């Protein structure tokens, strides 16, 4: 080995060490600005809640919150395994999981809702009407063209193109699929008897169907696939609008066609909120009432009842109380309204959520 080689090697080693050193020091530097007594609360899970957690992490100063949008499954399993402190989930834990892990809490935190959106060139500025039966027909393949009479019957005066319908659904298991298929099951008996609902269902084979991973995956598939229809969490409104999709009015249990808004979501939720059991687990789709939006869901934070130490427990309790507070905390409208999430009413917070939070110990 000659001199040049030694010099080059030396330089590289110095550069690498210097670069990494600088980053590490930089990292330490910025964390030193806050007292080291701060607890880090790690969060992962629901991609629907990920934007909220990013906002919360930036606005909650008492402790540090790390966020990662992986999926509700990773949220639940991470909280159970203790790899994260907070598991965010669109779905509460299953009975099996509850039996196996009695020490876990399902804490309702926010109310979410779902769009049925479509990308039909020329019709995206129309608010088209759909009901569960027609959507079930589209997703089982029996309604396969946009000029189908059943669709036209719901939308008098609209001229539909003659083009194959591309139904888009999630490829990963998700609370969004659970919400959507539960709506279909409750409004269409064929779907209820043959497919049912769940975080992932045995989708009927439709030749034109397309899948996407995550809400974003659905949006990008629909963007690149004209004449498609799909279900998207309303937290993704900004992306839905920039993609230029149309948003459907859906027929509720009372037979009315309603669009998503804070008032229609709350109207739906109010029918069920008094029925939330002490353990917090309840599905609230397809509510009765003229003004109820039919695809509405409770969002959950899954946490361990017994935290590894008192510090973490105290930090977690403080954060949860902050998060659910709709006057000065995380549920105030400046944080959650832009994402189309609704806060839990005060009665639910005091009767259900606070007792659950108070079970946490260190």
């Amino acid at each position, binding site marked *: 080995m000659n001199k040049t080689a030694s010099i080059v090697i030396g330089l590289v080693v110095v550069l690498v060490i210097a670069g990494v050193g600088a980053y590490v020091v930089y990292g330490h530097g910025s964390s030193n600005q806050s007292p080291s007594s701060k607890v880090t609360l790690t969060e992962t899970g629901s991609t629907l809640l990920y934007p909220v957690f990013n906002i919360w992490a930036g606005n909650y100063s008492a402790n540090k919150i790390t966020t990662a949008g992986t999926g509700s499954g990773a949220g639940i399993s991470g909280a159970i395994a203790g790899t994260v402190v907070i598991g965010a989930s669109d779905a509460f834990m299953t009975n099996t999981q509850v039996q196996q892990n009695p020490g876990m809490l399902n804490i309702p935190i926010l109310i979410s809702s779902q769009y049925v959106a479509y990308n039909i060139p020329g019709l995206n500025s129309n608010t088209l009407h759909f009901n569960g039966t027609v959507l079930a027909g589209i997703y089982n393949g029996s309604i396969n063209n946009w000029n189908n009479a059943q669709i036209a019957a719901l939308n008098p005066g609209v001229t539909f193109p003659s083009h194959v319908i591309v139904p888009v659904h999630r490829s990963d298991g998700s609370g969004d699929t659970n919400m959507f298929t539960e709506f279909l099951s409750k409004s269409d008996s064929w779907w209820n008897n043959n497919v049912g609902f769940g975080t992932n269902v045995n989708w009927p084979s439709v030749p034109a*169907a397309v*899948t996407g991973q995550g809400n974003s995956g659905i949006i990008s598939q629909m963007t690149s696939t004209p004449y498609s229809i799909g279900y998207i969490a309303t937290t993704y409104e900004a992306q839905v609008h920039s993609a230029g999709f149309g948003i459907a009015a859906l027929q509720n249990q009372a037979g009315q066609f309603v669009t998503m808004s804070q008032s229609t979501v709350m109207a739906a939720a109010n029918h069920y909120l008094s029925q939330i059991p002490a353990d917090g687990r309840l599905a609230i789709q397809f509510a009765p009432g003229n003004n109820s939006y039919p695809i509405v869901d409770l969002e959950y934070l899954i946490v361990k009842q017994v935290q590894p130490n008192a510090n973490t427990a105290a930090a977690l309790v403080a954060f949860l109380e902050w998060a659910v507070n709709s006057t000065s905390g995380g549920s105030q409208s400046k944080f959650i309204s832009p994402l189309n999430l609704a806060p839990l009413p005060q009665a639910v917070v005091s009767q259900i959520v606070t007792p659950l939070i108070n079970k946490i110990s260190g």
Partner: protein
Amino acid sequence: MALVPMAIMLILFSFLIYKAIPSMRYTGFSFFTSYLWYPGNVYANPISFHGVMAPYRSSFGLLSFFVGTLITTGFAILIAFPVSIFLSLTINLYTPDRLKRPFSVLVELFAGIPSVVYGLWGVIVLEPVLLHNIMPWMKYVGFQGQIISGAGIMAAGLILSIMIIPIVTAVISESMHSQPRELKEGVYALGGTKWEVGKHVLLGNTRKQIVGGTLLGTGRALGETMAVLMVSGSIVNVLPTSIFSLTNTMSAQIAAALDSAFIDGTGMNLSALVELGLVLVLISLIVNLAGRAIVGRGALRGFEND
């Protein structure tokens, strides 16, 4: 220290097998013959079958992912094989010596691009081009089937082929380069053209390495996850009907379905994914070890031993 790789591999295999046992008992041989991968209703009461618990109406069969892996990898090889051979011939026969080094560096840089970057390019550039420019034209010249999206078999196959061409080319080109000078000179002395040197010496004597390099490329394509996950369309439970179909592969399915498996309290979904991973490892092992046995030990991605 030399024992560490062995120890890691033994732990890995025993752990994967241990974790896959519930799925093996639940699905039995139908794991290989069914194309339905259905996580089941995890909110209903689980069922008990062959002594293991599984979600209601769950079923696990790898066929659609296996077919998807086979088709996308096959598509990639179909392109990478001739391209790599022509590239190797051109570099060894028709390229001036002073350009050979830059070309080999270029090939290595190609191989250094991360798969998510290939995926990014695939989503932003390749998919729209396929959908709007290439697929309609293919339909015009007689390909059958419904065009749904730019994602799918073609996008995944093309991205994979771009990813493995450097590997295959490096192995073939290297073995062509190391052919004895005397053989080449002999052909020239007999009045042979460069192509005749290529045909008789370079191609004729490197058949084994060509097969080996192709196998190493195949191994890489089989295991590639992220780029395929981004451009394949991630369809489940559907076998492809045409070249325009969406698809999914074994590796991409593991990445995509892992999260929903965590919701399953019985653990069966996770176990089934581990079994899928085990099958993928076995296929990948056979292909890679065969390739390595032919090419020899020096090459990792083909060109690191110069």
